[in-house]
């Protein structure tokens, strides 16, 4: 039955090759080509500058932070809505809203947060007028690492909710009832039954959230464009932009991003394989 297994995967593989892998390969290949068209490793070597290395580091940190927070908050929110036995209407609303919110990114999102938490934002103004509290004087600044992370969470959390919802649905009622019958507290239920079952899904979604944030540029650009140094912005500068650029370097940057995403994926796979050992 060997070949039969692959029939079902065939459409996917054909599609992936034609529409994902080959275009990417075009880009990856140009990482190894210099301006004249000859083979070179210079583009990769040129990645080793403080500016580029620090951009990778900041990118990773923002992605990890927003993925972790997004996953945690999303999980709590999804649990509250689905298992908290809130009305079905609430659940539907949350799911559809999450669908829209997960793609609400880029300039509209950056602007929405500027209009909310910026120096002249709605919340800033409310706090100043009614609570006599100037959050900017207290040290808050939207245009910072944490400001960016909070903004990213606007699409990370809904993404988490949407992806984890079916898994939470799969936590059968019978299990919590059985656990309660055996004397387990809710905490114990979650610790020994709930979370371990959800764990592989959580990891998978974390990996997705990480990649999602890692590749996101439009929001960061619109929010802190000139002062933030993340890889997609550098990539953008080389491949697009208004000034003469170095497409080879841009391709090398993209290659670097793909490698990091691959590494993150490997880490996730290793952890998940171990977690799944006792699950079928």
């Amino acid at each position, binding site marked *: 039955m060997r070949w039969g297994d692959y029939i079902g995967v065939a459409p996917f593989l054909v599609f992936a090759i034609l529409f994902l892998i080959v275009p990417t390969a075009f880009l990856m290949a140009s990482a190894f080509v210099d301006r004249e068209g000859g083979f070179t490793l210079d583009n990769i070597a040129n990645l080793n500058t403080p500016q580029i290395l620090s951009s990778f580091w900041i990118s990773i940190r923002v992605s990890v932070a927003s993925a972790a927070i997004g996953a945690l908050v999303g999980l709590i929110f999804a649990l509250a809505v689905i298992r908290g036995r809130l009305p079905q209407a609430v659940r539907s609303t949350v799911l559809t809203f999450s669908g829209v919110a997960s793609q609400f990114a880029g300039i509209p999102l950056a602007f929405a947060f500027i209009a909310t938490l*910026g120096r002249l934002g709605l919340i800033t103004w409310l706090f100043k007028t009614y609570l006599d509290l100037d959050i900017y004087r207290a040290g808050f600044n939207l245009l910072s690492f944490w400001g960016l992370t909070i903004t990213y969470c606007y699409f990370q959390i809904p993404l988490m909710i949407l992806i984890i919802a079916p898994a939470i649905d799969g936590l059968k009622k019978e299990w919590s009832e059985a656990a309660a019958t055996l004397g387990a507290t809710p905490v114990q239920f979650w610790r020994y039954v709930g979370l371990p079952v959800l764990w592989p899904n959580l990891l998978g979604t974390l990996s997705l959230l990480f990649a999602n944030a890692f590749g996101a540029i439009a929001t960061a650009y619109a929010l802190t464009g000139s002062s933030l140094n993340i890889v997609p912005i550098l990539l953008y*500068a080389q491949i*697009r*932009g208004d000034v003469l650029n170095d497409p080879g370097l841009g391709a090398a940057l993209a290659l670097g991003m793909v490698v990091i995403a691959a590494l993150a994926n490997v880490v996730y796979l290793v952890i998940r394989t171990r977690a799944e050992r006792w699950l079928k």
Partner: protein
Amino acid sequence: MKLRFVTMVSATALVAAGAIAPAFADASQQLVDAAKKEGQLTVIALPHDWCGYGAVIEGFKKKYPGITVNELNPDAGSGDEIEAVKANKGNTGPQAPDVIDVGLSFGPSSKEAKLIQPYKVSTWDSIPDSAKDADGYWYGDYYGVMAFLVNTDIVKTVPKTWADLQKPDYANAVALSGDPRVANQAIMSVHAAGLASGGKLGADAAKKGVDFFAKLNKAGNFVPVIGKAAPLAQGTTPIVTTWDYNALSWRDGFNGNPKAEVVVPSDAVVAGVYVQAISAYAPHPNAAKLWMEYLYSDEGQLGWLAGYCHPIRFNDLAARKAIPADMLAKLPDPALYAKAVFPTLDEQAAAKDVVVKTWDSAVGANVK
């Protein structure tokens, strides 16, 4: 190639005086027929609010009905346009751009990469030499000078010079209209600030410009958000440095809400030229040529002027009194334009190098 504006004026005045062929010649009937047979024109990176392109495109469509205009990606930067030309080699569909409008430095580089084809419009002679390629591959289309757009509802004392921006009155107020590592406009802003600080055009001014913005940032006056019409109106970036034509058109778009003023800083007036070219792989070369004829005719040039961009044949038009008085009245003081400096290709390249390399360590990366 280092012609200053004043020299340009005298040069074109001489040319205009000695002009034999009427500068307002219409395109030949042959060309019009060939273009109509092709039936389509594909343009890229032309936002309707930039230099009044919306009206210019409408004018072209009205003059030559039967030619559909495909407008690709108005959001594109010059780099995107070049990529689009390269990617569409061999494609005859409506995704292949016929003509491009790119920053000055992209002209020679596209010619070298064999991505564009030469064409000399009928009004070729009235285009200043410093703004065109001798073989006709690329030619300047319009220029503008770096200016400030100030939200006067929020900023009470309007800054008049680059030096003014450093004053404590402007805390959390000043923003660039793009990312100086990516966008031509932003790099030119830095360049201009450096010129105002006493630097020489090129790498020296760029370095002084980066220092200027570093100082601005440390003083707390610089806002790293990319300044556009919306954040300016909302108040996050009440002062934005951008091309005068953008500033004027955004100001008009506000319709008084918020009240805004356009200021051309008096201590340094830097001009930037954009250039037109026809793609070497254009699927509709005749339509492309017709488009060029239209753009460089009086009608097309005035269309840009209505969008507040100074068309490249401005002096020729002014000398022949072809500019309506009310249009002239809406433009800022011409005395300021008289002292505008046009950085050469080499100076621009040197400046861009310095800014792109040093921006992050001097101004950026304050996101911990």
